[in-house]
């Protein structure tokens, strides 16, 4: 029985705005700080997607063959890294920070940290495919737009919405006038699996009193065999 404890440290970013303190920069919205999920129940915040997903034939085949126990890394390993884009649907809080020339998005979930280049630097020719992908951001008015390529594929969200390694996503973050909550719309462009681009969306609640907590991860062992309860208890007692 594999039981693993993975302790990771919270990223410390010097010289950044205090947690939960909105920042105002010229021509930019003051939405930097911590956001939490709206009220939700079944493990994920409310997620909106089209009634009909525009699968290609191959996309539908992959979707129907999806077996979470086999294909979802999080179901195989409790401490598997949360990839882009599925991490954007996670429930724990996030923090959006402003750095010179870039935006940093921290997710409490799995201590994921994304660094978004605002200079428009294109990915190098040998850019590898990674679980975070390669992201470039820009402002269009008060909307933060992030385009990401070179992701490792897998699933767009929980369930059977596959993403190929050639997929591209565009995130749009904005606040409605007079409101402090954050809206997110994600456009998925992945011709291998979908006949046309489509969007999924969610919201975040402005949470200036929250602070992100460290995500020390404990893996309870493989999911395809019953847990060794005595060994598990021994491991838990040592934590």
């Amino acid at each position: 029985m594999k039981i693993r404890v993975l302790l990771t440290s919270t990223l410390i970013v010097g010289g950044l705005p205090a947690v939960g303190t909105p920042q105002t920069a010229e021509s930019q919205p003051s939405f930097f700080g911590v956001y939490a999920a709206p009220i939700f129940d079944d493990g994920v915040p409310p997620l909106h997607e089209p009634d009909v997903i525009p699968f290609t034939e191959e996309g539908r085949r992959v979707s129907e063959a999806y077996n979470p126990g086999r294909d979802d890394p999080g179901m195989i390993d409790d401490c598997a890294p949360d990839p882009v884009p599925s991490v954007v649907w996670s429930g724990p809080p996030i923090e959006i920070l402003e750095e010179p020339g870039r935006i940093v998005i921290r997710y409490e979930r799995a201590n994921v940290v994304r660094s978004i280049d605002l200079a428009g630097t294109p990915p190098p020719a040998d850019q590898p495919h990674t679980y975070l992908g390669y992201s470039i951001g820009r402002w269009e008015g008060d909307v933060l737009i992030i385009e990401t390529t070179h992701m490792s594929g897998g699933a767009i969200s929980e369930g059977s919405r596959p993403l190929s390694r050639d997929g591209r996503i565009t995130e749009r973050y904005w606040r409605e006038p007079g409101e402090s909550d954050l809206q997110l719309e994600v456009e998925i462009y992945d011709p291998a699996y979908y006949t046309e681009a489509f969007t999924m969306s969610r919201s975040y609640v402005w949470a200036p009193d929250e602070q992100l907590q460290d995500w020390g991860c404990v893996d309870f062992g493989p999911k395809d065999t019953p847990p060794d309860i005595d060994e598990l208890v021994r491991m838990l007692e040592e934590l």
Partner: protein
Amino acid sequence: MIVRHHHTNSRARALLGLLLAYIVVGWPQPADSHHSFVTRTTPDGDDAIEVIEGSVRIFKILNPHGALVIDTVDAAGNTEGWLLELSPAAQLAREGWTEDMVGPGDLVTVSIFPSVTANRARLRALLIHGKADSEPGRLFVSYGIRGDTPIMQRLRERLPVCGTIEASYQRTECFLIDDDAAGALAQEFPGPMGYVMP
């Protein structure tokens, strides 16, 4: 329907005689719920719900899931351990869960979403029985019952809250159940933990 043996003490038997039969049931529930494992489903494709009873071995608030480990005893006297998983640590802490709220030897009855793999499940409701006649049980309802759900509404209408949970998150609530309340609930919502069933 499978009927199993109670693992309980005399105090708990008196309290729960009308409430619990240690019965495994299937119940409709949205099938697309997030889990860290594949859950067992009913013939209709809904997540199955089981009710089991046992004594606590350890409770830990961890990421990505809190862990409650309990021992149950079947009709033949065999002990069977269960790993019951909860929400992430930081979320549980925000809601007011603490590791000392339940400890080794405490008698509990739980409503769970069982995994397809034996002895592993997601916790949806936890009843911690009082240790003495004068001590009411504490019922924590969470996963699958959160928010302004009919189950949460019925409990709020009938039971006092413990006062230890941060209700603003609308995810977990804790209710107190004394003998009188237990009897009334059993009559109105028959079956094992019928008061938290859909």
